[in-house]
């Protein structure tokens, strides 16, 4: 189980501080799939990176199966990370290593003997149905295949947790389904606690058990996907309603009749004159 307890992350910048994650508490049951959804800049990636401390929270605790990760020294934390696999939107594979070598590297970092690495890496590639691509370089693979190599790389160390940052945002809808299927299957067969960050409702609907909605660094809404599917969930926030409404609504009324949403003044053309009614 992962518990986030009052986690906050503030970035210090030249023009003041910026709080990307603001007092988030979240309990993620062992073996479940937690979705984190929100718009760009909501703080989803930062929160995800807080879990394996790629980004150390400025306040709060991250507790993994009773171990407070925020209290560990660098060396202990590094070893804990072998228990936490991670995949990324842009795959982050090494271009100059083959698929197999990419997966092997993860085992090397986990301190696994050389003789064992090859065999386990090959096995992991088989799980994602890429055994025949083991000698291909990332440039020779499709986006979906690259993400599957990344999944193999993440799970080859037998982690307890799999963190996914927009795992399907760089692939097409059909590939999205396939990548999510692999993640779901692995979650089921290996019981890996999984966290999926996304800005697509479809993704959480397909894969998550529970969902947290983020806005301005805070979790503003939570729901069970089962309730959503049963139609018994009513979003309580503006952002929740917007997110659950998958349609894209554009204002197609003539510009001439519209007003600036901020000031309420009529829209002006480039020449500074009010737009004339057609």
């Amino acid at each position, binding site marked *: 189980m992962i518990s986030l307890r009052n986690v906050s992350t503030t970035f210090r910048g030249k023009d003041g501080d910026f709080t990307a994650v603001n007092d988030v508490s979240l309990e993620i049951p062992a073996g479940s799939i937690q979705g984190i959804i929100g718009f760009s800049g909501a703080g989803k990636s930062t929160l995800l990176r807080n879990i*394996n401390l*790629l980004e150390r929270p400025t306040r709060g605790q991250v507790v993994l199966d009773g171990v407070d990760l925020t209290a560990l020294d660098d060396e202990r934390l*590094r*070893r*804990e*990370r*072998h228990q*936490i*696999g*991670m995949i*990324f939107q*842009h795959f*982050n*594979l*090494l*271009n*100059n*290593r083959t698929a197999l070598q990419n997966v092997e*590297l*993860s085992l*090397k*970092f*986990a301190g696994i003997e050389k003789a064992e690495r090859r065999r386990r890496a090959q096995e992991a590639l088989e799980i994602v149905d890429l055994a025949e691509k083991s000698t291909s*370089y*990332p*440039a020779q693979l499709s986006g979906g295949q690259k993400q599957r190599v990344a999944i193999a*790389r993440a799970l080859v*160390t037998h982690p307890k947790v799999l*963190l996914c940052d927009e795992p399907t945002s760089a692939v097409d809808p059909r590939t999205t389904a396939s990548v999510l299927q692999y993640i779901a299957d692995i979650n089921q067969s290996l019981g890996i606690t999984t966290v999926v960050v996304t800005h697509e409702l479809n993704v959480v609907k397909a894969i998550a058990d529970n969902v947290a909605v983020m806005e301005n660094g805070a979790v503003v809404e939570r729901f069970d996907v089962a309730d959503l599917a049963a139609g018994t969930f009513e979003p309580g926030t503006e952002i929740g309603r917007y997110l659950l409404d998958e349609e894209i609504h554009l204002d197609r009324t003539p510009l001439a009749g519209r007003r600036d949403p901020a000031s309420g003044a009529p829209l002006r053309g480039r020449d500074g004159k009010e737009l004339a009614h057609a």
Partner: protein
Amino acid sequence: MLSASAPTTGSESGLGLDRIIELLPEIGVAMGQTFVMLLVAIPLAILLGTPLGVWLYSASPVGLKPRPRAHRIVDSLVNTIRSFPFLILLIAIIPITRFIVGTTIGTAAVIVPLTINAIPYFARFVEQNLTQLGSGVVEAARAMGATRGQIVRDVLLVEARPALIGSITIMTVSFISYSAMAGLVGGGGIGDFAIRYGYYRYETVVMLAAIVLMIALVQVVQIGGTRLARVLDKR
């Protein structure tokens, strides 16, 4: 002007070919000296410049282990050495040269300033090549629980390898021309040969022959380097 000066060397054939043949042994020696200079200075620069470049990358404010104050000092030190014109460096470090190789003239004496010039030069290449890799692979390696040493050895230097080969090529080419200044301390080399015969003795044909050799050398290095980088680059 140039064609008029050629006959003053006393060459019988208008082309001066026999003069070149006459000087062949000397050209061979000069080429040998150039090779020695490059074959010692460049590997030394790679051996010592790589750790320095990795350190510059790693200790930078956004690096693997930021050490802003130390970084600023080393960074300006590197800039200082890099800003010396080679000729001045050559003379300025004569005491160091004497200390290291026991002499201040000859090929061995040129290798010292060449190497001292090349180390920060290559370190900058390394630093830049690592920086340009972006944060993605480093991020992934950190998430996998890699040590900093593993991140450098197994991720950064592997991913930067094609770019580093390109940098070594550029460095070698510039040093072929730098080594021409070696003549100033009696270091020899093909560049020095060209200056001595062409510039001081107006033996244009001999100079041209030497320059053709230098062009050939540069071509070989450049084409070889580009090929190797392309083979290694799997992007």
